[in-house]
């Protein structure tokens, strides 16, 4: 069954969507949308460096994403607003990555595949990596769910309950780096942030608790992945962007439904 490229693509899309959705909720709650973007952009730099020094790609991307996350935390609170720091770092990382790729010259690299993903080229090893990463992220998040929520609601209240909010922040950063690393193949660095934020945002008007929102985001993410894959085949369009378009459509639908319900 795994021999069929379509089945592999569907499984890859599902894996990424399921891992990205609950994390995406935290990205939305903590107003870190741009943070996700910056981490994703750093990934292209990771890819370039991996190729330059013939290192394995996945760990390089993980490290690049983590370094970016650390750099962002280190730079904010030094007279720069968070969005400025992210704007500088995200685009610098993307630009540096693109320049590095060009400098490699002799290495054959399908840049478009990294920027926009190539879900139809996912092989069995990729699939193992994606589901391994997704399982790690889900395990990490669900084992610490209440602490993560509390640290997000109020770091001080978390402290008073004996939770270290810095540690929870670190857990989220690590989870984000893993999701970015495994999602590159599916949607590419430019659209990873979309897969994090859009399903969570679409689930918001329909949810009354954090748990239902996370569950809704998973369902919406999974539907977008499968629907996008199907639509891309039907319309002969690039798969990654089509997945994001379907997610955006669901987002619009959810706003409409939420608006009607609140009337």
């Amino acid at each position, binding site marked *: 069954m795994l021999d069929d490229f379509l089945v592999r693509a569907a499984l890859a899309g599902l894996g990424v969507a399921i891992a990205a959705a609950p994390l995406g909720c935290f990205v939305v709650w903590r107003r870190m949308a741009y943070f996700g973007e910056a981490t994703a952009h750093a990934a292209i730099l990771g890819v370039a460096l991996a190729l330059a020094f013939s290192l394995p790609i996945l760990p390089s991307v993980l490290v690049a994403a983590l370094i970016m996350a650390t750099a962002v935390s280190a730079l904010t609170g030094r007279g720069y607003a968070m969005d400025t720091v992210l704007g500088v770092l995200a685009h610098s990382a993307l630009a540096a990555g693109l320049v590095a790729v060009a400098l490699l010259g002799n290495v054959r690299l399908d840049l478009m595949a990294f920027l926009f993903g190539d879900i139809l080229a996912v092989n069995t090893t990729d699939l193992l990596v994606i589901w391994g990463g997704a399982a790690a992220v889900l395990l990490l998040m669900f084992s610490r769910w*209440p602490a993560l*929520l509390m640290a997000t*609601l109020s*770091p*001080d209240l978390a402290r*008073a309950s004996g939770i270290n909010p810095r540690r929870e922040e670190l857990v989220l950063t690590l989870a984000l780096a893993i999701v970015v690393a495994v999602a590159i193949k599916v949607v590419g660095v430019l659209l990873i942030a979309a897969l994090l934020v859009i399903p969570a945002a679409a689930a918001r008007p329909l949810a*009354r608790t*954090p748990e239902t*929102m996370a569950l809704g985001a998973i369902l919406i993410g999974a539907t977008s992945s499968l629907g996008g894959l199907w639509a891309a085949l039907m319309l002969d369009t690039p798969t990654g962007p089509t997945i994001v378009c379907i997610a955006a459509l669901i987002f619009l639908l959810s706003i409409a439904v939420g608006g009607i319900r609140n009337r």
Partner: protein
Amino acid sequence: MKPVIATHGIGVKLGGRLVLHDVSVSIIPREIVTIVGPNGSGKSTFLRALIGAVPLSSGHIDKAPGLRIGYVPQKLAIDATMPITVRRFLGLPHKIGLKTVDAALMRADVGGLGDHQMSDLSGGQFQRVLLARALLENPQVLLLDEATQGLDQPGSAAFYRQIEEVRRNLGCAVVMVSHDLHVVMAASDRVLCLNGHICCEGTPEIVASAPEYRALFGTGTKGALALYRHEHSHSHDHNHDHLHDHKDHA
């Protein structure tokens, strides 16, 4: 009596500025301690140091083993991006039975709000929900940071009555920070006047007549607090260092 929590000469630096220095305070069971002080005097920082939210630059804090702290922060904005009902909020981070949660809400006078979204609550309802949450795990010490902010006068009065009741029923110590001086002082066993360090402390009467206290509140508010003071002299020792501190924040 053995204190539930005690600070020994603690200092806190925030952004290179020494916000607190040499603060030694012992809180014994069942007492209500009020901390007063001008803006920027380190009142909130002191409470945050007690819960461990800010690192100490000097000194140390002794807590009774397994101390349960209830904390009501000064400001808590629950972002509308997170859907969360009042009940769910009270059940975080520890799972708590529905009955207990509803009883806590009833006790805080917000019994019917369990199904409401936190982001839909009014300021007063929000404070009561925060108090209900702080009381859920039977704290041995309750820390209140400007807890009556956003409450009108009858609202604050009711809130303080509730605090006294909580002390009676749960037997917990209460440390509150406020600039709502006249109301707060009446309910307190002890008042600490804070301005980076403890300028003076004692019963409400002693503190109200202390020159250090008057130096901070008599001139600092340009006499606006004269409402609560029958008289206040302007003969202060102007070489006091905290006076200069105060001017920076005026």
